């Protein structure tokens, strides 16, 4: 289990984390939420070890981590097939079906729409068969249709295959409905962790995002919306 053990990290004088501790539950989906600029991506960088904490340590970092970044860069005009098979020889039929990539295999990625492209990148990280999958705001640039396909495919495959997911999402309804656990960085930069039910708390969320939020029930779903 990946464990943050009293992590502190600062950029210049600006403290990002001060003595943060958390455990990432294996084989489940955890959503990382919090205001912009609070240090969510920095936490990802700590987990992938592209930066080191100033004190404390991260224990149990899995061997195979895959990362879907906010902006995924591609420097050669590859076709979808070439990207998916960059590290292996075979295509994963199930992933292709869920992500609707079958028709796109021989198309150059740069010619695809933003939504299709993000599905291709999800396909790319899934083809790595990671132990831990990190997703940094994967649905931010997608329309509702592609957001739905994206999250559906992700949760379906996660349930079947049991890899661990840590995902940054800004849409709180999406975050709570697509995961089992929540990591929340509140306005005081404290890392609060718990199950989805534990953290489904109007006061906590409203204070974190400095905005009055309501939790409403609609058609069996719990929606988190700003008070208008």
């Amino acid at each position, binding site marked *: 289990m990946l464990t943050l053990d009293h992590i502190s990290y600062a950029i210049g004088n600006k403290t990002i984390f001060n003595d943060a501790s958390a455990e990432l539950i294996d084989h489940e989906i955890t959503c990382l939420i919090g205001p912009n600029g609070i240090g969510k991506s920095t936490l990802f960088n700590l987990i992938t070890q592209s930066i080191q904490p100033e004190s404390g340590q991260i224990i149990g970092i899995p061997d195979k981590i895959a990362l879907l970044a906010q902006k995924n860069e591609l*420097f050669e005009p590859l076709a979808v097939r*070439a990207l998916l098979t*960059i590290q292996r020889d075979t295509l994963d039929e199930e992933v292709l079906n869920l992500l609707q990539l079958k028709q796109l295999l021989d198309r150059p990625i740069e010619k695809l729409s933003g939504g299709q492209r993000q599905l291709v990148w999800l396909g790319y990280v899934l083809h790595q068969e990671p132990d831990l999958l990190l997703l940094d705001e994967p649905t931010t640039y997608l329309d509702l249709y592609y957001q739905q396909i994206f999250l559906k495919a992700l949760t379906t495959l996660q349930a079947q295959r049991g890899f661990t997911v840590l995902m940054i999402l800004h849409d709180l309804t999406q975050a709570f409905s697509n995961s089992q656990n929540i990591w929340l960085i509140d306005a005081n930069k404290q890392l609060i962790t718990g199950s989805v039910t534990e953290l489904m708390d109007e006061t906590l969320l409203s204070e974190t995002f400095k905005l009055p939020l309501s939790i409403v029930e609609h058609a069996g779903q719990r929606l988190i919306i700003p008070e208008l």
Partner: protein
Amino acid sequence: MHKAYNVILAAALIISIGAALLLGSTHLSLTALLQGHSDAWQLAINYRFPRIIVAVVGGAMIGMSGILLQLVLRNHLVDASILGIMNGSQFLTLCIIVMLPFLTNANVIIAGICGVILLLIWRLCILKQRSTMQLILVGIATAMTFQSLTQLTTTGFGVPLPSLSTVTWSQTWQLLVMLVIGIMLLILVWPNLKYFALNSEQLRLLKVPESRMLYLVLAIVGLWSGAVTGLLGVIFFLGAVLPQISRLMAPQAKAQALFLPTSLWGSLLLLNADTIARTVVAPTELPASAVLLAISGPLFILLLIKGGR
């Protein structure tokens, strides 16, 4: 489609080699060669063959250096000439030969080594994720500086600069040795080259040793660009343009698939530029590098305007 395209290029290259063998200030006839006239064979062996080999091998080396550099720098607008490496190794080689004249006959090997040294220095001092335009402008300023230094040295010491018209068998062998060494290094990095389509962070997560590969690739590029410069002089923009031509033809291929067409295009252009240079106003020989620049310059402008990254 892909294969057919390479076959066409290879066929064109074979025809061009034939033309280069027979055409020139003295025309060779095929019948004379076939009948075994010794004069004809002497001309072919002493002058035409080394020149053709150098043009074919040198063109391929420029093309492959271009792709390698563009891949590892993740920048489709650079090559060794634009970064100033070709002019730099030309000047450095010149200095070494002026100071140690007994090394004159090993000039291709020395130029290759100079290329490697310069590219490694360049890597350590300049390359720190600069913007494309800044990189290109710094490179061109470097190139121009070295060019003027070269000019001052050649005029001052009366040392002639190399050109295709003075190629000897000894130089040809040196170039072939450089080719073989480079290819051996290329085999080491070959399986990992495709990963440079991704950014450094992804490479780290995939556990690809990017930094080690970068140094190996820079060594190959330095060796080849230096050696080619030692034989032909500086050929501007060609290495930047050749990979783009092959990318246009095979746009979705992994990087490895670009090597063959790029090499073939390089050989074709260099060989035919040389043939043109020595035939159009024969018996006067034009410099092949100038003919090439007249082609690659406008192509590079087109590349910039088309908005390559």
